[in-house]
């Protein structure tokens, strides 16, 4: 049995839903003319999760024409039951913030400014930095002659913002490189 507490919804699928209005029998009455159009009417519903604390309130993202138009709590999730705190309630403008970083940026040694760069260039540069550092510094044997294969001079910090899948990818890549200095927010 699938759950729904949204009587106006026709069936709840696996994540992506479609909001339909108009058959609810509402008499919009005198005030109709002064009430703005429901901005989520006809929007696709997508289930996401608030990116903050580990209550992990589920969120419905309302999407129209590939654009996010609103967010609110998912009433079906048994833990938040549709509710959110101040941060969760501000998700919409958090996603639409103009302040967001939009492109890879580069700051050269001793420079006083950022430069926009392409992903191609940026990933190439980073790959070379990692390899050069690793090739120079990796410790194959310790003082006792034991094999250690340890790349000590590069660290990784972060992040609990990553999904489980991303954590798995990051962990595997780092141990492949021989990284031991790795840590994230669980330790602060």
């Amino acid at each position: 049995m699938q759950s729904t507490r949204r009587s106006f919804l026709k069936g709840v699928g696996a994540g992506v839903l479609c909001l339909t209005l108009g058959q609810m029998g509402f008499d919009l009455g005198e005030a109709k003319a002064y009430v703005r159009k429901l901005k989520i009417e006809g929007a696709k519903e997508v289930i996401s999760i608030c990116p903050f604390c580990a209550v992990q309130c589920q969120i419905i993202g309302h999407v129209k024409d590939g654009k996010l138009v609103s967010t609110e709590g998912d009433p079906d999730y048994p833990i938040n039951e549709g509710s959110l705190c101040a941060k969760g309630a501000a998700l919409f403008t958090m996603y639409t913030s103009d302040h967001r970083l939009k492109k890879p940026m580069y700051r050269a040694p001793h420079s006083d400014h950022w430069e926009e760069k392409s992903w191609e260039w940026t990933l190439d540069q980073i790959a070379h930095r990692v390899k050069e550092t690793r090739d120079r510094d990796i410790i194959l044997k310790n003082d006792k002659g034991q094999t250690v294969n340890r790349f000590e001079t590069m660290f990784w910090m972060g992040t609990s913002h990553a999904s489980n899948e991303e954590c798995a990818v990051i962990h595997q890549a780092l141990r492949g490189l021989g990284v031991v200095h790795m840590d994230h927010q669980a330790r602060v």
Partner: protein
Amino acid sequence: MTNHWIDIKNSDAVLIIGSNAAEHHPVAFKWIQRAKDNGAVLMHVDPKFSRTSARCDFHVPLRSGTDIAFLGGMVNYIIQNNLYFKEYVVNYTNATFVVGKDYAFQDGLFSGYNPTTRKYDKSKWAFEKNKDGGPVIDTTLKNERCVFNLMRKHYSRYTLKNVSDVTGVSEENLRKVYDAFCATGRPDKAGTILYALGWTQHTVGVQNIRTSTLIQLLLGNIGVAGGGINALRGEPNVQGSTDHALLYNNLPGYIALPLSSWQTLAEFQKANTPVTTLKTSANWWSNRPKYMVSLLKGWFGDAATKENDFCYELLPKGEPGEDYSYMYAMDRTYNGKMRGGFVWGVNPMSSFPNTNKMRTALDNLDWLVCCELHNSETTDNWRRPGVDPKACKTEVFLLPSAHRIEKEGTISNSGRWLQWFDQAVKPAGEGRCFADIVVPLFNRIRELYKTEGGTLPDPILKMHWTEKFDAAEWTRRINGQFWQDTEVNGKLYKRGQQVPAFGVLKDDGSTSSLNWLYAGSWTEEDGNKSKRRNTTQTPMQAKIGLYPNWSWCWPVNRRILYNRASVDVNGKPFNPEKPVIAWQDGKWVGDVPDGPWPPLAMEGGKLPFIMCKDGCAQFYGPGREDGPFPEHYEPAETPLANHPFSKQLVSPVYKFHTTPHDKIALPADPKYPIVLTTYSLTEHWCGGGETRNVPNLLEAEPQLYVEMSHELAEEKGIKNGDGVILESPRGRVEAIAMVTIRIRPFTVMGKTLHLVGMPFFAGWTTPKCGDTTNRLTVTAYDPNTTIPETKVCCVNLRKADKLTEIG
């Protein structure tokens, strides 16, 4: 959390200590209030009165850093007044185990202490052994060296008077909390302890939590509905990122990092596979070799064979006893031993302690790669106030990351529920999710090793990797797969198919799993269970709000850990009104039990604490760095010169660093007489790097403030809203005074002591908002976890003539 969010409603007494749940887990407070609706008493023990306190039955102010004294007092109170649940204590804990003769405790120090290395020789704390090597057990609790009697003796010093003197809590208030919470020592009552960073961020963080274990075991509150020790995990996926171990000392699934002393897989497995002599102990970690080999198989695929130790040799090996954590990485950076670093989705130049040290250290890197939603104090450290960018050599690559709603995958909530989220919209601009950067980056590195060669290319080239990241593919890999056709209970699984549960994982290379705990989350039979949105429950499950069919939770969809401790030895629930599991007609009903075995009293029955070697929960924990019993020590930076529990003022084994930036004030230093505690707040997220860039949230909490009592404000000539300058031995910070009755002076050891509190959300990249509070906090760490003591340091403060950081 041993339990889960909804389960809090089943509690009869909710003790919130080391947490400000209403402000930091606001939606969780829904379930705390439901407990109250059902008749529970809510208590908040915390240095300041907060929005949590406002909704509790009472608030008890506690001097920051004295939780062990407070809780140790409760342990003493329970034992002295015979309030413990004896059946539970005798049957399910190591209270009955006899401790070896080398264990001793004298004047604040346990036996085996070496003052030169500041370390204990833990072999001195071993249990007495039988001829077969197993523990000596005295179920009569008469042996004076049994754990129960050692614990009674240890906490006999924690009298109401001593505790009150140190904590600043009146004896009346101590009794109020102790009485209300200890009432849950009855079999049919449950009390829950909710904690968060208020416990972990201390030089005695682990022992804070251990003390709560003592209380909850004495009262029989572990494993039951409405009970447990519940870490209200803060960060969005900190449960998952800990399970998948973005931590130096673990591999995914709580498997230790290989060390140089374990050169072969056999040596690793021997050292990491506990052995028990007790037939009634499930000793679940005896399965660890299967999980380790399945992890290696997941990482190296067909390249991992029995003959080559499944590529174990290729993994990095740490040095025994070496610390590779955040704080040590930064100290090594400070000392010029690091060349490059990745800092992703975290803002250490705001949220790390002693930030002036950290900011100076970061300048020493040759290159830095950041991946963020916004510029932060970390990404822009090279142009921070007061430094000339031209002097900083660091090359910085700043990558735009994707927000949660712009990607898909799973995360794990604090109650271990695995939850799928869909992608609603494409990432803004050229933003990418973390994995969409790591995968192509690693592929480029692989390509370089393939074409150019290099040092030790094998671990990189032999990996079972991917060309392009697909979240679902990795959810499946995490669950685990068969690498050869295998028959399980008469059903044939083909190579490449999903394993149904961790019970089928093997140490012969026939299975893989990137995290054994998650095995069973995506199966051939049921598909991706993290997408389940089914609210059906049996009437028994509905009574306690178990929701077993909504999403999936590790391990094996068990919603309440250690649930075998919720029933007596015959499988009968201690609380028949709120049963978690029950043995009925030859089988378990309710939650998924901790293992399929029948109740303890029956043939083949097992003890409830299956992750402990000997099946019993541990009052006495000989594995910790700072002693088998929690003991009160003052914070590394303390306003006191002595305390009544022992002559050992501070933890003898806490960790610290020694650069010129790592200053710690002397005990009771008159230059820094005021205690500072730091915290998050509702409207910003931790260091604020994300939420300060959300105008609607910045509107609600725009600038850094310091909360102080009217008494202190008057003493310092400060009025509400005035600018204030705070100083510690490590730095200086500006803030706006919030003068309030919510903080009041403490009386400690007969003297008045002031405490102030500050959030740490501010940072200089947000104009006029102030800069990080952490420039004041101390680089002293818990010896077990290396978590810094950001909850306590000593400062002084004065009214500011003018402000430069806040506009």
